[in-house]
């Protein structure tokens, strides 16, 4: 401590000089508007560069995560391709209809607004009427189902999230194709209920829930989630099933809009047929 004082005493003149100069510089920057502006321009430029640099470094650390996501997405796409091919081989052997091969088209969109904490959640995406989006189209993420387009403006669309009290998605258990539907029960954005599954079915934990083919919004076989808990009360006819949703709604950034080319045809046919019967 004493040596420190000695040091300060010995170099008191340079120290005083530096202190006074620093004080002057602070005075210049704080009291003169012109110098103030220049100081903040220069400093913000350098801090901006620095932040950009640190960002680019952090990107490397996230590469593995990004790779994993891309690989998963690849797998998903491969699965979709094989599914279409399978349908083509198995059922429509003689029909070489490009509208069947390309029945589903996927269009990338970025999520610009999202919520998960309300009882009815909506998502805004940056694709709209101009890009061919229409109400009723399905929206999925690389991990699983997201929701259904509700309304469109020219450049944006509102998607009814799966986390919406009125949203029901026709779904099935992947291993035995038993049909039901998934509905969000509110609260936890990572869990939903699967309903309408009668008690005689063989359903266990860890079974995968996928979209069924019985709707015109989603292609069959898109993951919704994994069964987390199977409850069965003695007097109930249906299972009480908790599904862990595979989509992380908190972290949605890019989604795919599904354009079903045959949707209109299917719905029109169904409508006409039912009208006929009604008459």
């Amino acid at each position, binding site marked *: 401590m004493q040596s420190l004082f000695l040091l300060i005493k010995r170099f008191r003149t340079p120290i*005083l*000089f530096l202190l006074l100069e620093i004080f002057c510089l602070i005075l*210049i920057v704080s009291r003169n508007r012109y110098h103030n502006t220049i100081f903040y321009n220069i400093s913000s430029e350098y801090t901006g560069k620095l932040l950009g640099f640190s960002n680019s470094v952090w990107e490397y650390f996230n590469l593995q995560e990004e790779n994993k996501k891309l690989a998963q997405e690849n797998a998903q796409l491969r699965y979709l391709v094989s599914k279409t091919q399978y349908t083509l081989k198995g059922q429509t052997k003689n029909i070489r209809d490009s509208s069947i091969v390309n029945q589903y088209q996927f269009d990338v969109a970025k999520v610009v607004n999202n919520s998960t904490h309300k009882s009815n959640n909506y998502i805004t995406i940056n694709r709209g009427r101009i890009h061919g989006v229409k109400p009723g189209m399905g929206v999925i993420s690389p991990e699983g189902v997201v929701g259904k387009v509700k309304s469109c403006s020219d450049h944006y669309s509102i998607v009814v999230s799966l986390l919406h009290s009125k949203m029901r998605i026709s779904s099935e258990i992947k291993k035995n194709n038993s049909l039901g539907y998934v509905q969000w029960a509110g609260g936890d954005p990572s869990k939903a209920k699967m309903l309408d599954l009668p008690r005689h079915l063989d359903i266990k934990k860890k079974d995968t829930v996928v979209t069924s083919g019985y709707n015109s919004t989603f292609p069959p076989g898109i993951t919704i989630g994994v069964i987390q808990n199977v409850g069965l009360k003695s007097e109930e006819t249906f299972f009480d099933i908790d599904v862990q949703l595979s989509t992380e709604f908190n972290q949605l950034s890019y989604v795919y809009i599904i354009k079903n080319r045959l949707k209109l045809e299917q719905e029109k046919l169904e409508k006409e047929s039912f009208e006929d019967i009604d008459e």
Partner: protein
Amino acid sequence: MNNKVIVSQTVFFALYVILQVFVAKYLELFDVAFCFLYINFIFNLPHDTKHEFLLLLGFVMGFVIDSFYNTWGIQSAACVFIAFARPFIIKILTPKNAGEESEIRDMGFLRFGLYALILTFLHHSIIFFLEVAHFKYFFSTVVKIFFSTIFTLVIIIIIQYLSPKKATKAHE
């Protein structure tokens, strides 16, 4: 440092401030030459003034001038710098075989001129570069520094050698 010196330096301080603020401030030649004759106060402080005290005096002088020029901190920074540099310049300019220098005004004309030139140049470089705070106007700033240094130096030498005090001193 006796009381007489303190009183006379205080008077000088006030005189230089008044001269600078009311006269020299309006001496502008062709928008490139400006006069800052008040730094002669720092040049002429007694030789035995403590270095720290020099710094503080330089700061106070600069601060007062700044408050009249509305350039907060610029003159102060330059004055503190020349107050810091002053003893080193004097040391360089003092011949080795010469005895202990008693006062600044006992320097010869040439040595005082060189001494004043170096310090004036330093002072002006600092104020003009701090003023623009940018190397974009490097050339025009250098032009300003060059002509202002000459201008100030001429004025300072005139004051130094034509002041009545100097004349009476010479008569003694």
